[in-house]
């Protein structure tokens, strides 16, 4: 049984259908990367899983139980946390308060504590009492990841972590992923940066126009296949 399973998920914004029969599975200990161009439906998929968008109850299941129609707070309580696109730190809160708010709905034995987050991203310890708006983009992203980890998730959803950050910072953040995974979280990353996604992922799903166009292990996929699935045209055409 998959940890998280998405089966023929249709998602809507009002009358507009954004996702068409999407199937994705995340197994324990795995990292799944979802790639695709702008508007392909990647963020909609994560928002659907996190409960920001409500869907048909049976279309998403976690540990075998349907969660598709749960609200965001109920989804978090089950152990699914999200690092939202654009980081979305709380501007009225300090860095440390942003991290602490992640533990608001504290689940049983905390695997992640403030101390461990500061071990993971030492720069945050120095800035703990600063306003979150005073940080650089990369540091803000570290806070957003730390904040999600503070709820001790077993599924971590990361939306466009690399967006607007220098490549060296992106590399630094991704280099901490093994530690995050060894603490017990399975991860879904949404990325526009194909190279980065292919490097970290056990399974890659490529989305276009609200549907999954390609999926498989990175080693089984050719560059041309990905290109076709991503843009709808091949490299040579």
């Amino acid at each position: 049984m998959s940890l998280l399973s998405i089966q023929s998920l249709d998602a809507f914004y009002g009358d507009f259908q954004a996702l068409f029969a999407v199937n994705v599975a995340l197994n324990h200990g795995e990292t799944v990367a979802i790639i695709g161009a702008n508007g392909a439906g990647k963020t909609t998929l994560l928002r659907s899983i996190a409960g920001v968008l409500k869907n048909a109850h049976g279309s998403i299941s976690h540990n075998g139980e349907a969660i598709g129609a749960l609200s965001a707070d109920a989804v978090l309580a089950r152990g699914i946390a999200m690092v939202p696109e654009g980081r979305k730190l709380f501007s009225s809160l300090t860095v440390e308060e942003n991290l602490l708010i992640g533990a608001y709905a504290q689940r049983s034995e905390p695997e992640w504590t403030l101390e461990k987050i500061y071990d993971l991203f030492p720069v945050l310890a120095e800035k703990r009492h600063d306003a979150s708006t005073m940080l650089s983009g990369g540091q803000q992203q570290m806070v957003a990841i730390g904040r999600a980890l503070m709820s001790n998730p077993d599924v971590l959803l990361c939306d466009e972590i690399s967006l607007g950050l220098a490549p060296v910072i992106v590399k630094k953040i991704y280099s901490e992923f093994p530690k995050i995974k060894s603490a017990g979280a399975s991860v879904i990353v949404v990325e526009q940066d194909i190279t980065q996604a292919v490097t970290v992922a056990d399974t890659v799903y490529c989305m276009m126009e609200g549907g999954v166009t390609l999926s498989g292990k990175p080693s089984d996929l050719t560059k041309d296949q990905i290109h076709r699935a991503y843009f709808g045209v091949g490299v040579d055409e």
Partner: protein
Amino acid sequence: MIWLETLIQGILLGGLYALFAAGLSLVFGIMRLVNLAHGDLIVVGAYMILIIVSILGINPFVATFIAAPGMFALGWLLQRFVLNRTLGDDILPPLLVTFGLSIALQNALLEGFSADSQRINAGALETASIPVGSLSIGIMPLLTFATAILVIFGLNQIIFRTALGRAFRATSDDPITASLMGIRPSSVFAIVTGLAMLVAIIAALYLGMRASFDPSIGPVRLIYAFEAVIIGGLGSLWGTLLGGIIIGVAQTFGAAINPEWQILAGHLAFLAVLLLRPRGLLPRAVD
């Protein structure tokens, strides 16, 4: 010397206005909800205390403690089942609903208690005073002001030092992201309004002990409260106290010059501050 006495009176009166305004400021600061029925809810609180005092024959301060849980529950239920449904991108529904609530409350009170003026009897406390140098300062205004400071200090402790307060601020910043943290915005809002009603019952106690009240006085009190919130700066509770003091001082000086100018002087001070500092004296909220 008369001017110093007037100044002190004005500052202490500001404490009363700050008590009226603190609940309003809290609710607006966290939910961007303007509660036009806040003044009437304070009057409801005053009647609650009056009933408890007259039935049990106890001290009004003790009666306030007895009424407090009921007032919290009233605020919680009001937010949970009525006001939460009005929140959204449109600012009009909360205004219309709380305006309607204001009228409904006034008429319900009129039906239940008639239009007669009432007063909460505080005994000797009402006229007691302490001499300071050649001045004499009323115990009641002093107590009101001290309570206002205590209430605002307490609210700030909750907002800035507790997990609940963090949830208040996070929800105020961004309710959707807050829900991703496991916070249910509708429950947080219900607690905020419950808390605002706890402040309202304290305001009601002083309202009832210091002057007579009847079912219709809510909206008039609300205007001073609004002015205090706005010139203090939206979202800042200490600013609200400062705003209350400015209006209080303006009113007592106006009255000292000519009794007819009391109310007008308060409003003029409000307009003057708005003219010079349109965002208030200590604005916290950016929007």
